[in-house]
């Protein structure tokens, strides 16, 4: 008797997309919006997936998660600017050869910062939610200012790879090439996380720890090491997501992490605290809805995500895929 997969939240993504088609009334525009929504969802997923695990496993409310997004974006941008020549080449291989070290730098810098942050800021306040909110908000502000000190207070333009600029034309629909890359990278990250969580002993431990950290310790595992590993991995993913987001927006500011945190929290809550699968579906829903409402009723764009969260929580109060506790 195998556990059955709950298809309903996944079907909801298809339902939202299908429901938007008659409202948009133009198949090419709908296709463009749908790909844009999926790409946005994938990038939000990359940024949010670490936070949901940190929430679930460590019961830590880390409002400073946005710092790892910003710092990753800045580190990657520094590399991309240094490799401007390769970014402006027409060859996709040359573009990717510049993007790969940029992504690696983002992952490394965000990961190291995450490790330091866990040791210095988070560790003294485990189990104390009010203090966590205060110190992580404080950390967010401090690091934002440090970014301004290092990189300056002005917006920095991010060069988008030449081969990924422009669009594919599919019938009458224009699909940005970069968004296709974002979907591919997002899917790859999700697949890697799914395999890690569901096909390895480490993944089993993480899932068990999200449910009952004390019991994992009672079985003889040092949960603190797992905490640190997950926190660092979450920071690395935020850095990667920040890089993708920076290339998507083609500019970065020190506040970019803080600005996306509202959407990230919505996604984490919609998905169910600690649920990577829920985070993935939640991010897709948020991305699609933001694009459809941005086209149909721009003034409702942000409100639509909050409305989505309210509706999901009325339907499933613990999120789309609640983690059993």
């Amino acid at each position, binding site marked *: 008797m*195998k556990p059955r997969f709950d298809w309903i939240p996944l079907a909801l993504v298809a339902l939202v997309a299908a429901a938007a088609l008659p409202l948009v009334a133009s198949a090419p525009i709908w296709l463009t919006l749908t790909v844009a929504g999926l790409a946005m969802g994938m990038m939000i997923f990359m940024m949010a997936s670490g936070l949901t695990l940190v929430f679930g496993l460590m019961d830590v409310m880390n409002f400073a998660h946005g710092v790892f997004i910003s710092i990753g974006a800045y580190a990657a941008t520094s590399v991309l600017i240094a490799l401007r020549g390769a970014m402006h080449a027409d060859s996709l291989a040359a573009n990717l050869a510049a993007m790969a070290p940029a992504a690696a730098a983002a992952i490394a810098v965000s990961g190291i910062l995450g490790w330091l942050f866990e040791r210095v800021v988070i560790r003294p306040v485990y189990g104390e939610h009010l203090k966590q909110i205060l110190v992580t908000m404080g950390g967010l502000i401090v690091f934002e200012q440090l970014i301004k000190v290092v990189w300056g207070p002005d917006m920095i333009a991010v060069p988008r790879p030449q081969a990924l600029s422009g669009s594919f034309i599919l019938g009458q629909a224009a699909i940005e090439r970069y968004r296709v890359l974002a979907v591919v990278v997002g899917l790859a990250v999700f697949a890697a996380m799914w395999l890690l969580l569901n096909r390895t002993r480490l993944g089993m431990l993480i899932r*068990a720890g999200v449910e009952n950290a004390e019991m*994992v*310790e*009672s079985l*003889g*595992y040092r949960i603190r090491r797992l905490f640190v590993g997950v926190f660092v991995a979450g920071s690395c993913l935020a850095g990667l997501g920040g890089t993708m987001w920076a290339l998507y927006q083609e500019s970065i500011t020190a506040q970019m992490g803080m600005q996306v945190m509202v959407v990230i929290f919505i996604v984490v809550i919609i998905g169910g605290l600690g649920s990577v699968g829920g985070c993935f579906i939640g991010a897709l829903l948020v991305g699609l809805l933001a694009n459809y409402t941005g086209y149909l009723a721009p003034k409702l764009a942000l409100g639509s995500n909050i409305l989505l969260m309210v509706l999901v929580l009325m339907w499933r109060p613990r999120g789309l895929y609640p*983690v*059993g*506790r």
Partner: protein
Amino acid sequence: MPEPMLALSGVNTRIGQYHILQGVAFEVPRGGLTMLLGRNGAGKTTCLRTIMGLWRASAGSVRVEGRDTTRLPTPELARLGVAYVPENMGIFAGLTVRENMLLAARAGPPDEKRLEWVFGLFPALRKFWNALAGNLSGGQKQMLAVARAIIEPRRLLLVDEPTKGLAPAIVANMIEAFRELKRTDTTILVVEQNFQFATSLGDSVAVMDSGRIVHTGAMADLAADEGLQQRLLGLSLDAHQ
């Protein structure tokens, strides 16, 4: 006299402003099954959690096979061969029965013989091997919790109220399983409210009241002395048969 498997001496545990354990001292002899009895709120669960290192003793000492484990982190204690089944069973509801068992087998995949032995104790687990643990009934969850604790040989097994809320048929299964367990060289300490379960299995007994040990001795002696039961536990054996 051989060294006891577990020895508590003057153990005090505070949780917030509450002083729960107030100088708990008793010994669990090697082999066999010791019952820790007492009224609700006597401090039994706190005592097990303190032994397991989940709550820290503010004073006194806990020794496992002569080694001071009072300050030992819980994972280290587990690695010494101490297993714990909490009152809420602590199963991982989002994992399958198989995954719950695999996690408990720290040394690698469970030994086939041992697994068959566990299936013999709790046949339902074989049937629901690939089912989500969260979908099991209360009795099956309790079986899984105990099975998980014994998937590898343990020196000391701490079990908190294994019959709580279980149907009589499941309790009978539990009694049989613990009888079988007693035949191994695992020492068992069980917190229990079900006096029939306690008298069926207990070799020795410690009774707690208001955070202190008020009686230790042979289980058979307590079972035979209704006056003592009345005085220590506020019950008569007849009421529980």
